[in-house]
C-alpha cells in the first residue's frame, strides 16, 4: 500500500467539472483496489479546484484585453497631434513596458498564491503583446515610414513570438501567430500577387503549424508550455491547411502571374526543416502521421492550383469536372482529418473549424463553382449522402483511433 507523502502545499490547479468527476471516480477505484489510502486520495483531490475553462470572467478578460489592445493601435492611427510624435512614441512604449512588467508580476504572484487568477495573467500578457504593435506602428508613423508596409506586421509578430517564448505565455503566442500569418501571406503577395503564390503561402503556414505543434507535443521547447503551445500551433496549421485547399479549389486560381520570391523560398525551406525535425522527433506513429498529413494537404493544394482548367464558367469540360471532383474530395478528406485531430487532442475548436470550413466550402462551391455543372440543391443532396456514408466510416475510424491511443498509453 502506498503511504501518503508530506506535500508542501503545491499551488491549486484548475480542472473542469468533467475532469474532476473522472478523477474522483478513479481515486475511489484505486482506494477500493488498495493502491492508495484515503489520506493520499484526499491529498490528491485537494490539489485541484473546479474551474470552467470558458467562464464569463475569462471571456470578459480576454475580450477586454483585445479591445484595449486594438484601441491602443487605433489611438496611434488617430495621429493625436496634441502631442509631438516623439512624446507619443515614449508614451506608447511606456504603456507597453508597464503592461509587460505587470503581466510578469501577476504571473509571479500567481505562482506563489492562487489569489491572482491565471486568466488575468493571460489577458495582461495578451494586452502587452498587442501594445507592442502600437509601439512599432507609432515609431513608423513618427518617422513617416511608407504606408502599407508588411514588414511592420512581421516585426510585431517576431517581437510577440520572443515575448511568448521568454515568458512561456499563450497570450503573446496568439498575437504572434495571428500577426505572423498575416505578415507572411501579405509579404509573399506584396511582391507578386498570384493564385499559386497565395496557395503556396497558405501551404507553408499549414506545414509550419502542424510540425511546430508536433515538436511541442514531443517536448522540444520546454516542459511547462508544451501542451498550451501545441494547441495554438496545431489550430493554425489546420486552419491554413483548409484555407490552402479552399483557395486551390477555385477554378480561376492557377499559374498566372506566379513568380518565385525570396520570402516564399525561405518559407518553404523553414517549413521543410521544421517538418523534418518533427518527423525525426515524433514519439508515435500517429504523431508522424500528423506531420505527414500537413505536408500531404500542402502538396495536394499546390497540385490543384497548378492544374490549369478553364476559368470561364460557361466552358465546363471533362477537365473542369475532374478538377472540381478532386477538389471536393480532397477538401472533405482534409476536413474529416481536422475533425479527427480535434477528437485526438480533445479540441472542440478544431472540430468546430472543420465543421464550419466544410459548410462554407460546400456553400461557396455550390453557388460559385458548381452552378454551371450541377444545381446547388443537388450538390447539397449528394454531399449529404456522402457525409452520411463518411459519418459511418468516421465513427468506426474514431473507435479504432481511441483503441490505438489506449494502446499507446499502455
Amino acid at each position, binding site marked *: 500500500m502506498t503511504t501518503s507523502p508530506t506535500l508542501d502545499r503545491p499551488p491549486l490547479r484548475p480542472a473542469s467539472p468533467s475532469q474532476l468527476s473522472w478523477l474522483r471516480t478513479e481515486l475511489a477505484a484505486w482506494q477500493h483496489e488498495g493502491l492508495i489510502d484515503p489520506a493520499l486520495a484526499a491529498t490528491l483531490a485537494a490539489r485541484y479546484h473546479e474551474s470552467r475553462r470558458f467562464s464569463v470572467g475569462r471571456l470578459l478578460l480576454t475580450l477586454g484585453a483585445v479591445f484595449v489592445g486594438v484601441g491602443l493601435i487605433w489611438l496611434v492611427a488617430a495621429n493625436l497631434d496634441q502631442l509631438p510624435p516623439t512624446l507619443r512614441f515614449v508614451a506608447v512604449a511606456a504603456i507597453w513596458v508597464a503592461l*509587460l512588467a505587470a503581466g510578469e508580476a501577476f504571473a509571479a504572484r500567481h505562482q506563489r498564491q492562487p489569489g491572482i487568477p491565471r486568466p488575468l495573467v493571460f489577458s495582461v500578457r495578451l494586452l502587452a503583446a498587442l501594445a507592442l504593435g502600437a*509601439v512599432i506602428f507609432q515609431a*513608423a508613423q513618427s518617422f513617416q515610414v511608407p*504606408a502599407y508596409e508588411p514588414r511592420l506586421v512581421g516585426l510585431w509578430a517576431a517581437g510577440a513570438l520572443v515575448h511568448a517564448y*521568454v*515568458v512561456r505565455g499563450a497570450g503573446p503566442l496568439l498575437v504572434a501567430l495571428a500577426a505572423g500569418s498575416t505578415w507572411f501571406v501579405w509579404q509573399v503577395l506584396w511582391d507578386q500577387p498570384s493564385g499559386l503564390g497565395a496557395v503556396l503561402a497558405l501551404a507553408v503556414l499549414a506545414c509550419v503549424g502542424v510540425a511546430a505543434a508536433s515538436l511541442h507535443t514531443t517536448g522540444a521547447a520546454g516542459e511547462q508550455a508544451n501542451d498550451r503551445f501545441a494547441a495554438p500551433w496545431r489550430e493554425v496549421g489546420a486552419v491554413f491547411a483548409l484555407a490552402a485547399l479552399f483557395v486551390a479549389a477555385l477554378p480561376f486560381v492557377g499559374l498566372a502571374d506566379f513568380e518565385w520570391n525570396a520570402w516564399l523560398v525561405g518559407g518553404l525551406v523553414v517549413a521543410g526543416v521544421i517538418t523534418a525535425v518533427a518527423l525525426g522527433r515524433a514519439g508515435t506513429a500517429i504523431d508522424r502521421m500528423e506531420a505527414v498529413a500537413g505536408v500531404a494537404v500542402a502538396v495536394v493544394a499546390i497540385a490543384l492550383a497548378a492544374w490549369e482548367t478553364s476559368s470561364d464558367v460557361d466552358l465546363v469540360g471533362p477537365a473542369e469536372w475532374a478538377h472540381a471532383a478532386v477538389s471536393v474530395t480532397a477538401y472533405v478528406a482534409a476536413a474529416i482529418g481536422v475533425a479527427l485531430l480535434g477528437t485526438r487532442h480533445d479540441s472542440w475548436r478544431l472540430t468546430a473549424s472543420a465543421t464550419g470550413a466544410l459548410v462554407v466550402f460546400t456553400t461557396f462551391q455550390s453557388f460559385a463553382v458548381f452552378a454551371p455543372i450541377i444545381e446547388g440543391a443537388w450538390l447539397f443532396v449528394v454531399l449529404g449522402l456522402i457525409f452520411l456514408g463518411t459519418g459511418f466510416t468516421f465513427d468506426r475510424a474514431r473507435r479504432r483511433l481511441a483503441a490505438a491511443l489506449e494502446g499507446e498509453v499502455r
Partner: protein
Amino acid sequence: MISMVRKVGVVSVTGLALAAVAVYPQLSARLTGEEIRLRVAPVDPIDPFRGAYVDLQYPDLRLGGPDPRGIDDGDSGDVYLTLRPKGDVWVADSWTRTRPEDGTYLACTDHTWRVRCGIESWFLPQDEAAEMEEAVGDGAIATVRVDDRGHAALVDVEG
C-alpha cells in the same frame, strides 16, 4: 524577482530593437542625412494601423518611358536613383541597379507597380490630411533627408 526583471528586460530590449529595425532607414537618414527638396503631388488614403496619410508622388523622380515605374529593363528589385540639383529642388538624373559609389542618390525598390523610396507617405490627423490634399493639389515641396546609403526620411511637406 531577478528572473522577472530579466524576462521583462529581454522582451523590452527585443521589442525596442525591432521598433528600431522598423524605422532604421528613416532614423539613419534623419540623424546623418543631407537635406534636399523635391516637388510632390499628393492624394489622400488611410492606413488601417497608422491612420490618414497623404500619398506622395514625385514627378521629378520619374524618368519617363512607357513603363509606369519609369524603369524598363524587364527586371525588378533594388534600384538607385541618382539626383542632381535643378533650381531650388532636386531631380532624378539616372537610375542604376548597383549602388553608386558617391554622390546623392535614393535607395529604392520597384517590386510593385511603382518605384518606392521610403518617402511616399506623410502621416497627418485625418482633417489635416484632407486640408493638405486641397492646399497642395497644385504641387508642393517635400523636404527629405538622405544619408550616404541612400536611405531617405521625409521631414516636411510645404504647399
